């Protein structure tokens, strides 16, 4: 599903964000990417979304070499991946319903399909009763659930989350992660970059640990493994 082969990323000022990274994620896996700040987690996510180009190496997503992908194909790559960020990134002038519907409008879905699908996804994330509210009327956890709904409404094969619980309290964080586990159970591959030690330790999922741009650990039922 996702394969990094000898991937390195150097930034302009000679900073090495990733050096010679190799790993493979199978379809249906739930993977935590952990490591201290500056270890290369964000860079890894950015490479996956083709927001940045690797300096060398090959990245394969859904059997396609995305490093050789043309600019025109990038939108279609991103449609195969749902993304959730630490800062939610919702549109403030659109309601919850419209925010989720927007993701479907962008890919040209039929209005009928939008009216059928959005309520379904909102009920999955438990926000059916907030459909007409605006993001600023919601709590952080609710906003992140809207973002999750938006990320999965087009049924992507991969869900990518970059510190999705970074702005949330522990209880709310758990709700989000449980929701992601639920989405994973339905067949979506989940890649989550995180700092949340408790969550990683409790979930007992695969853990890829980065340090200074290198993979220092890759365990099938891993723990966070860093002192706080």
């Amino acid at each position: 599903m996702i394969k990094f082969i000898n991937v390195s990323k150097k930034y302009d000022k000679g900073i090495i964000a990733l050096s010679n990274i190799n790993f493979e994620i199978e379809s249906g896996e739930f993977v935590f990417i952990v490591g201290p700040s500056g270890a290369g987690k964000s860079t890894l996510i950015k490479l996956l979304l083709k927001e940045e180009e690797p300096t060398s190496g090959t990245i394969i997503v859904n059997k396609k070499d995305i490093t050789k992908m043309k600019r025109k194909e990038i939108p279609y790559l991103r449609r195969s991946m749902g993304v959730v960020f630490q800062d939610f990134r919702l549109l403030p002038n659109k309601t919850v319903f419209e925010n989720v519907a927007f993701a479907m409008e962008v890919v040209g879905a039929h209005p009928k399909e939008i009216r059928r699908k959005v309520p379904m996804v909102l009920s999955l994330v438990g926000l059916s009763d907030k459909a007409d509210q605006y993001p600023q009327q919601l709590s952080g956890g609710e906003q992140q659930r809207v973002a999750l709904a938006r990320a999965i409404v087009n049924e992507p094969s991969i869900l990518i989350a970059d510190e999705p619980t970074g702005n949330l309290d522990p209880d709310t964080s758990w709700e989000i992660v449980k929701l992601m586990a639920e989405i994973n159970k339905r067949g979506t591959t989940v890649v989550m970059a995180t700092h949340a030690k408790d969550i990683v330790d409790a979930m007992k999922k695969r853990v890829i640990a980065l340090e200074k741009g290198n993979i220092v650990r890759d365990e099938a039922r891993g723990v966070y493994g860093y002192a706080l």
Partner: protein
Amino acid sequence: MDMLFRNFRYFIKEGFSNLARNRLMTVASVTSVMAALVILGMFLLIILNVNHMAYQVESQLELKAFLKDDLSGEQIQRIGEEIKGIDGVSSVVFESKEQALEKFKKQLGEKSYLLEGLEKDNPLPQSYIVKVKDANLIKDIADEIKGINGVDKVSYGQDVVEKLLGIIRIIRIVGLAIISILFVISIVIISNTIKLGVFARRREINIMKYIGATDWFIRWPFLIEGIVLGLLGALLSVGVLALMYGYTLDYVNSRLIVFNLLPLSDVIKDMALYFALLGSLIGAIGSGLSIKRFLNV
């Protein structure tokens, strides 16, 4: 097809909602574009009329070879043949003393009584009216005709013609330069307006990119916004120009008789069409330029 249509509805809705959101900027930039296009249009009208004038001058270009009075019919015939033989001459017409007087009377109109009694002792010379194929050849041909035996004088208003052609050339060059500058200014005006809209929505654009929107999906609403701005400015300016040109025509036609200006109906129809195209083009380029930077995510 269905999807394209749905998208297009979205683009138009978004494009117009941008315009409505920045109402003040919309009015300001439509007005600025209109002002720029009015000036541009004024120069365009001047150039069109100058071209029209140049055409009139060139088509009216003829020289007159006045003949001596004491020539026999045969000699007159021979001179005519000789002039016809010169390179660049397109037609030669003989004008007798009587015809010349008749023409003069016509020109004087009501005051033709001044010429009464001249029929018996006609002072006007007989002449050949020579038309040339190219205005630039007129001087050489005149010189050649002057050398023919029996030709008294050749006139073609050389000073006037040369000065006029010179002025026409300068007006064309200056006019085109000013039109180009105003074209660029209009693009900048629209580009700045769109930039505000793009900047206000950069978060939204960023999110759209992550969701998998294509560049064109993001670009269209802004393009439509720019085209509407350009088109509105262009159409308003055509209205202003039509009014201004109408007044100018009334003014000029009541005074000047040497040249007639192009009639309003001829000019304004073409102008409306070209300005609509020009306005859309300006708008499209302006918005295309301002959004480019924000698409690289």
